[in-house]
């Protein structure tokens, strides 16, 4: 399975949607619901997936997160986001 390209537009797969918003301590937490379960997301994972709106490109998402986390190594950020999206596509929660 190929990783996303810079021009890919990641989005939630059909029938996968956001569930309730909750707080875990001081941190914001949201849930993704899909056919056989649910995943709680917070921190970076949440930041990435909230940008997977089918409009932003993979390249734009990386850029936005790099700006936000300034100091991080750009190569590492790209690899991390790519791996995260690949895993979710494998589960059929994300398409790109």
């Amino acid at each position, binding site marked *: *399975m*190929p990783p996303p390209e810079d021009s890919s537009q990641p989005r939630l*797969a*059909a*029938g*996968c*949607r956001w*569930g*309730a918003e909750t707080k875990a301590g001081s941190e914001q937490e949201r*849930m993704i*619901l*899909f*056919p*056989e*379960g*649910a995943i709680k997301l917070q921190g970076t994972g949440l930041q990435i997936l909230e940008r997977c709106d089918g409009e932003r490109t993979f390249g734009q998402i990386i850029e936005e997160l790099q700006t936000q986390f300034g100091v991080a190594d750009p190569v590492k950020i790209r690899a991390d986001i790519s791996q995260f999206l*690949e895993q979710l*596509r*494998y*589960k*059929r929660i994300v398409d790109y």
Partner: protein
Amino acid sequence: MIPNPLALIAEVTHRCPLHCIYCSNPLELASVNSELSTEEWIDIFQQSGKLGMLHAHFTGGEPLARPDLIELIAGARTAGLYTNLITSGIGLTESRLKALVDAGLDHIQLSFQDSRQDAANWIAGAKAHAHKIELSHIIRHHKIAFTVNLVIHRQNIDHLEEMIAFIEQLAPERMEIAHTQYYGWALQNRAALLPTRAQLENALETVAAAEKRLAGHIRIDSVVPDYYARFPKACMGGWGRRLMLINPSGKVLPCHAAEVIPGLEFENVRKKKLEYIWRQSSSFQRFRGEEWMPEPCRSCDRRAEDFGGCRCQALLLTGDAAATDPACSLSLAHSTVESALAEANSSAAVSQPVPAASFVQLQQRAAHLWSYRTNPE
């Protein structure tokens, strides 16, 4: 504190236009006039949402046999639940599907009995196959998750590769390749359904190759059937740990088959609240945790992984619901499974579809092979 249940299994009716020989419904089906009303179900969904459940799985029988299914789906969605319709597709038209999606349906799981029309209709005891194919194309016009479910067994497992290719061109996000589980009608028909070891091993290879080939496009869910496994399945994720099942007449069960267990009294949603039933009823507490466990489970390292396996299977094969699941190679009663396997591996291959003009004719011609699932009164 007992954690909240994760999902509700709503058996909204036991009526079904199909008569699948592997059906795991109880032999004693809930009657039509005992079925819960629309309002009763909507109240159940509200209670489920408040109890923290995330998913409502609509099953049966055939949920589409309920004329109020659209209202039920809307009720579950309003209560904050993710809605999943497990269906044969019989009774679903293009306009009804649209209405269900508009009401908030998130996921549809459509069953197929085979890739070959004659064989599929023969297993289902109904001419359903062509309609299911047509419906698959209509489903893809909607933005809902689509799973194709295929139950495999001795009669169809030899052409699994062909069946996977067939499902692939229906373009679902998921395919579930489910080995028959031997409860209800399937247990009655076990000799016709249990595959040989060679059949199983071929099937495992076929599935592994397909998983690799389809990664990122179609996710395959498949589990080794427990009769051939070394350890039992963690049935329902453990008794009273994750799931609540409500049958058509409102009985609340920890699993599909629990009603066969003698000495257990199941509460009815008409009389008690779900939260009470989950936390305090004797039926949900009976096999929860580890207190009830016999040896070898009690001192086994795997007891928190498989919870001693399935209580109903223990009852059906040993007569004691509190025994270790005999599918476990460590069970004192494992010989009951071994003898079924010995028989499956020694007897002749498979039967062939017989043509028949009607279901009654099919029943007569298949009488020496298996019993078809009937319908409730």
